[in-house]
């Protein structure tokens, strides 16, 4: 026996084995990971620093809203991060999803269609609107698309505000049906199949399931032929179309799939808030979601999801707590500041700084980073003319 044969390959450690498993069975990993997160989150908030802020049920309620934002972030990430189309009116599809459910499941029209099938219908309706808006505009240059979507995002709430007979005007539609299940399951004194204001667990579990599904879908799309076409279009549309990619259809699909996720989020949020009103769907929603994506790292699915979750918790929980804290301790200047009021100012500053200093986001997508740091990509023609030619 030679010495070389004796050197056995080192038994891979737990981490490596986990990583290998995750690489091979990505969907299963997402399923297990989401299961773990969904189970652990409600218990983490019982621990000291978090339990001081809010009670467990309120935390869970906040997680549900966070889930809505993460859904929006994942959908917009397909449009901006993967396909590179700047959609600034994303909240419009959110509004369309929400209003579609409000119209078919409330006293307002007298129709009562159950929640579960409409979850799919809402997504389809939003996708149809995505196609309707995209079809004429996606042929245009990228920055025109930005302004058209910006306008669309602003016009949709105006439309709902102005049409009192169709959509309830400024007050919107209230008393929307909650989802229901034909059976009751109680675990540890909490009704986990209830969908009421005091019992947010049913929504929590539903959101966990939706997010798991959408995450698996996103990852599968990313590596599919379609996902690679999106990347190609994002990086060079002309080259992509020369390589045989039908750019219009491909971009339209990005728009439709992104919008459908938003439609999901809309139906869910309408059922959870029991009311829809135009003010919920203003430009601030689109902007918040955009900030989440830019901070998280455009194109990186788990990065944007974490970015979304973090910003949401900071915005909804910590900024109000900070305001309360400084109010209670009576520090001269700080106690007068309402920190929530400054949040969009902070987002704006964060957005500009991120673009200037770390355009790839906090959790960068590898390919995206190379694209944004053109100098490290080593392509001569991408070097700026300012640097390439001496000062005259």
């Amino acid at each position, binding site marked *: 026996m030679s010495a070389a044969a004796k050197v056995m390959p080192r038994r891979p450690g737990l981490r490596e084995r986990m990583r290998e498993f995750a690489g091979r069975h990505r969907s299963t990993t997402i399923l297990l990971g989401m299961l773990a997160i969904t189970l652990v989150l409600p218990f983490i908030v019982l621990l000291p620093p978090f339990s001081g802020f809010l009670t467990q049920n309120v935390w869970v309620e906040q997680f549900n809203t966070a889930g809505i934002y993460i859904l929006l972030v994942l959908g917009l990430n397909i449009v901006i991060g993967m396909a590179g189309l*700047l959609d600034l009116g994303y909240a419009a599809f959110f509004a369309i999803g929400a209003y579609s459910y409000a119209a078919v499941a409330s006293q307002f029209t007298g129709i009562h269609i159950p929640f579960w099938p409409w979850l799919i219908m809402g997504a389809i309706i939003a996708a149809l609107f995505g196609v309707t808006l995209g079809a004429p505009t996606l042929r245009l240059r990228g920055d025109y698309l930005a302004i058209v979507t910006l306008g669309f995002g602003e016009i949709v709430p105006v439309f709902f505000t102005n049409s009192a007979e169709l959509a309830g005007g400024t007050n919107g539609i209230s008393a929307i049906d909650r989802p229901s299940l034909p059976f009751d399951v109680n675990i540890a004194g909490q009704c986990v199949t209830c969908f009421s204001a005091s019992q947010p667990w049913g929504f929590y579990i539903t959101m966990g399931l939706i997010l798991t599904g959408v995450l698996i879908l996103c990852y599968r799309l990313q590596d599919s032929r379609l996902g690679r076409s999106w990347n190609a279009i994002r990086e060079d549309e002309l080259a992509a179309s020369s390589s045989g990619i039908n750019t219009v259809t491909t971009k339209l699909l990005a728009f439709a799939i992104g919008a459908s996720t938003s439609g999901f989020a809309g139906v869910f949020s309408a059922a959870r808030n029991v009311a829809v009103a135009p003010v919920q769907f203003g430009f601030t929603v689109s902007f918040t979601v955009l900030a989440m994506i*830019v901070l998280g790292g455009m194109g990186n699915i788990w990065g944007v999801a974490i970015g979304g979750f973090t910003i949401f918790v900071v915005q909804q929980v910590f900024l109000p707590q900070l305001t309360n804290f400084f109010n209670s301790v009576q520090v001269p200047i700080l106690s007068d500041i309402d920190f929530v009021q400054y949040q969009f100012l902070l987002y704006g500053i964060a957005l500009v700084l991120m673009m200037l200093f770390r355009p790839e986001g906090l959790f960068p997508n590898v390919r995206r980073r190379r694209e944004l740091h053109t100098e490290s990509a080593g392509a001569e023609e991408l070097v700026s*003319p300012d640097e390439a030619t001496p000062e005259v």
Partner: protein
Amino acid sequence: MLRRLLRTAAIGVALLVVGFALMYAMVWFAAIDKTPDKILSLATAQFFNALAAGGIYILVAVGYTMVYGIIELINFAHGDVVMVGAFVAYFISFKFLGYTGAIADPLLLLGVLAILFLITMPLLGLLGVGIERFAYRPLRNAPRLAPLITAIGVSFILNNFVQAVVTASPVPTPQLISLQSRFLVFGASIPWLYVVIFIVSLGLMAALQLFVGRTRLGRAMRSTAQDREAAQLMGVDINTTIAVTFFIGSALAGAAGIVYGLYYGQIQFTIGFFVGLKAFTAAVLGGIGNTVGAALGGLMIGFIEVSAVVVGLPRWSEALVFAVLIIVLVMRPSGLLGVSTAERA
């Protein structure tokens, strides 16, 4: 020179006549009482309304079109620059000079207006140069998405800075030119203010045309817009030229802000958004990159907006303008006076 001037004037007058005729037809359709006298006076009133509104959009649209022409960036923050201009004008006229309403003495009024324009416009110009220097210049060679996102960030910073630091509630601005001083034409009594707005707007446009067409810097601007690298090889200082473009565009936005306050008598931190969207539509309508086109587009947007009021749908004016934007982009993306540019991804 004189012939060109006369030709331009003739085209302008012809356009205004067509606009008046369209307005007359619109009022005739919408009116219940179709007495010719009444329709004529109503149409005249709405015509001057449209001129005033159009005058504001012209000033804003020119800023969009100049910036787009030179660095191909949609400056989302431009509408908010107008809003800041309106607030600066408010602070000067109300806080520093202490005026709350109309000034009767014409000489004094002229002086106050001159101070207002002479301070606000350079201040806003500097704001624009600052924005360009810190937010756009570092990204000049980055992928297209990056400066667009920065522009939105800047827009939000301006917007929320005014909201959080200055005030979130609507502010009544001093209407220095009294709405009561009017003149009669075709049986309609028209405030002089509307005419003043339109003349200020046209005057600034004419000055801009002279600057771009007749000065060294203007030529540098045109050449940079045409081909940045070639301009640089010819010895044009690109950074200065782009900074000057931003200065002029933002100074005009400042003028628009002053005029906005005089016209509407009330400002708020949110006004920038729709002014910006409509002015951008105007720029696209006229052919983006073309300053004369922007003026034409601004005037048309003013007429469209007033038409929405005439036919009884004032709340839908934003939606109408947006519909126009989509139709123009689909049917003729290069705009009315624009030349079609090649796709640059």
